[in-house]
């Protein structure tokens, strides 16, 4: 099985002007790696979720996500946007964004990914490691060690 997160799914300071532009850019990284079968469908499913309720969390986090028939394999894309993008959190914009895309059939994976991310995101040291990382590889290293491929 492939890794849930690869360096090519990481965007550092992309030039985006809105939440939907950011989501498009993040989904594009997954599409380029063949992780999704229907890019439009995934974007639509994520947007539908955001419309029901935005996914901003306290502390500068955005967590757009969807279970979608457009997804081949559970994947997580990451973006750091220092200027911040509004995900509707009460305490302001998000500068750390995780986009979680899982196949429509894997509800358990979905929960597991979100819960394990949340358990790390409550620690400031984890967030500051993501904020200070200087390369995509460093981001992957932090996330692999702390969240996704913990042995």
């Amino acid at each position, binding site marked *: 099985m492939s890794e849930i997160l690869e360096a090519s799914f990481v965007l550092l300071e992309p030039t985006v002007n809105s939440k939907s532009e950011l989501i498009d850019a993040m989904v594009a990284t997954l599409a380029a790696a063949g992780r999704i079968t229907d890019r439009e469908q995934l974007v639509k499913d994520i947007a539908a979720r955001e419309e029901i309720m935005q996914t901003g969390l306290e502390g500068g986090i955005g967590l757009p996500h969807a279970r979608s028939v457009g997804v081949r394999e559970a994947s997580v894309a990451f973006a750091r946007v220092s200027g911040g993008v509004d995900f509707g959190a009460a305490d302001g914009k998000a500068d750390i964004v995780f986009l979680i895309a899982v196949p429509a059939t894997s509800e358990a994976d979905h929960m597991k990914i979100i*819960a394990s991310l949340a*358990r790390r995101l409550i620690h400031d040291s984890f967030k500051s490691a993501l904020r200070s990382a200087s390369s995509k590889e460093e981001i992957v290293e932090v996330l692999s060690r702390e969240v996704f491929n913990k042995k």
Partner: protein
Amino acid sequence: MLVKSVTVGSRVGLHARPATVLAESVQGEGVEIEIAKDGNDEFVDASSILMILTLGVSHGDSVTIRSEDATAEQLEKIAKLIESDLDAE
């Protein structure tokens, strides 16, 4: 201390919209309410979406809520919310 055990009614479990609705409702009550997944006695602040997400609660799981300063009515209100399908559109 008031304590109450409830079964999660939301089909998707307590994340996304249900977690947000729950956290906002607890904030709205203006009292401190904590929540834990049964079998794991780590109570977290139920007014924080992020803390609720850390529990990884699925549909049908039992959770316990507790509070030092909520009234029985307030706790009941939150319990009802958890039991309902908050993700129904």
